[in-house]
């Protein structure tokens, strides 16, 4: 991979017309005087899976929520395909329009509503202006679940609170990959899952990346998983994205040290 790294150095930025899919530069965010994120910087290429790791409270969630548009950063710049986004007009809806979706840790599902409703949350297709187009919603939900190879969700009209944790997870991931044509951000996607379901989620990520060229940002505490899935690993320590490692070029011990001590 060292050639790959070098090519970045040699390439003249003016002649190289393909800027990274996402560039985050020195973003910061504080809440009521507490600086949750000091300087967050990273880039993400098309079809790449990167992982953001760090101790609890290091600023992982703040970093990705800032990118996802949950709140605008206090300072810094976010560029998509080389174009800086207007941080005064930075919102979840805007980022969703750009094909950037998040699977939140608590899944962000509406428990009393059906799987199709949740999959189309905020984008329900209309029929005659005031009705939901239930038929096409069900068909699309089926399609997404098939794509994820999830066969266990039979009755799509039931509220999703009736589904198992793994099934709910697949709805949340299905929603993200159905709409996140560019980037899917996974916040602790397998923290609440058993080993079989975890393997399922990892398989989904790899399949979607290979088949659709979707990029992923993975937030995880599971370092083995991070090393399995991620092309690059970004370490965040005390609100600063301090180090970056390429896949296979870092040992678990080294990562732990980077996370806990910051060096």
């Amino acid at each position, binding site marked *: 991979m060292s050639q790959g790294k070098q090519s970045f150095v040699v390439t003249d930025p003016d002649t190289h017309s393909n800027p990274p899919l996402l560039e985050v530069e020195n973003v910061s965010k504080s809440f009521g005087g507490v600086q949750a994120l000091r300087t967050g910087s990273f880039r993400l290429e098309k079809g790449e899976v990167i992982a953001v790791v760090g101790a609890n409270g290091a600023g992982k969630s703040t970093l990705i929520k800032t990118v996802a*548009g*949950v709140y605008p950063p206090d300072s810094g710049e976010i560029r998509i395909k080389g174009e800086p986004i207007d941080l005064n007009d930075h*919102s*979840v*809806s805007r980022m*969703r329009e750009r094909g950037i979706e998040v699977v*939140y840790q608590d899944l*962000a*599902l*509406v*428990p*009393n*509503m059906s799987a199709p*409703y949740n999959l189309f*949350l*905020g984008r*329900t297709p*209309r029929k005659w202006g*005031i*009705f*939901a187009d239930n038929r096409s919603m069900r068909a699309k939900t089926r399609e997404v679940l098939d794509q994820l190879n999830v066969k266990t969700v039979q009755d799509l009209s039931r509220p999703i*609170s009736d589904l198992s944790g793994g099934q709910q997870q697949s709805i949340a991931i299905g929603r993200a990959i159905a709409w996140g044509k560019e980037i899917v951000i996974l916040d602790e996607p397998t923290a609440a899952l058993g080993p079989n379901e975890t393997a399922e989620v990892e398989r989904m990520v790899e399949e979607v990346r290979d088949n659709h060229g979707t990029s992923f940002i993975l937030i995880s505490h599971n370092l083995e998983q991070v090393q399995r899935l991620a092309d690059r690993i970004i370490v965040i320590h005390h609100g600063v994205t301090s180090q970056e490692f390429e896949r296979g070029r870092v040992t678990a011990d080294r990562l732990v040290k980077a996370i806990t001590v910051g060096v």
Partner: protein
Amino acid sequence: MTDGSKTMAGGFLSPRQMEKLRDFVPFIAIALVILLFWSISGDRFMSIRNWTFIAQQTPVLMLLAFAQLIVVTTGSIDISIGSSLAFSAFVGAIGMLWFGDAGLLLGVVAGAFVGMVNGLVISLLKIPSFVTTLAMLIIVRALVIIISDGTSIYMTDGSVSGGTNISSVTAPWLLSMGKFPAIFIVAAVVAVFMWIFYEKTLFGQQLKAVGGNEKVLRLVGINVTAFKIKVFAAAGVMVGIAACVNLARAGAATPQAGLMIELDAIAAVALGGTPLTGGYGSVVKTIIGALTLTVVRNGLTIAGVPPSWSQVALGALLIAAIAISLNRSKVDVVK
């Protein structure tokens, strides 16, 4: 999960069967209530005359229960609807004095206006719906007293001319609308629209979603603030329609109209199996809830139970119905 469902018949019914049974509680309750009063009072209760009376009494409560259902489904509550009913009726009656028959529509506009103010205060100032609508209950009732100056506006059929100091509107069509079967037909038409609106439209779905997890809707970028304003305005429209129906039925806009009726509307919604925490609800069962309340009140009167004791019985019925129909395994915290 099993702990929550192991109430009443939980010993020999599976949770799924228990859930099915809960679905039918409002229907079972009304059937039992009818049978009870039929056996007590016989033909005096089970007569065409009495049921015509019930069909005339239920619509206003049903429409107000619809308004409440819209709000409760989102997890909020609107206790200002009684005052709003009186206010809307007055504005409608004044509208008829000034602009003729079509002026009645101002009553609906007035209801929508009160609802919208509720929604604006709740959403923009972030004051809980209970407190906001409690304040509006007081303010709007006071407004009614101010604009009415303590007097009523009467609807007449033109046969008797009122005194010079009495405001009256000659509107025989409206008075006939307030009688069976017209009032019943109006109520049925509104009920059909309400059913489509609540059970089938995207707006209806959104009501349940807001009651289910409002935070998630905000997270994915849905403008819940704007939506809630529409919710209260929609409930206000329903109150406005109820006010017009009440004006027709009572034949007058009075300053006391709708006093304490918000409690009946909430009770009707609850009897219809809708949890006040929001997320779920049913138009058909709310109709049954409103009907149950009317039938019990009517039945107790016919059976000769003094009004105060009737109220006690109604309160007890409310608790009993909710104790059976509420699925506790779906409720995390009881507040």
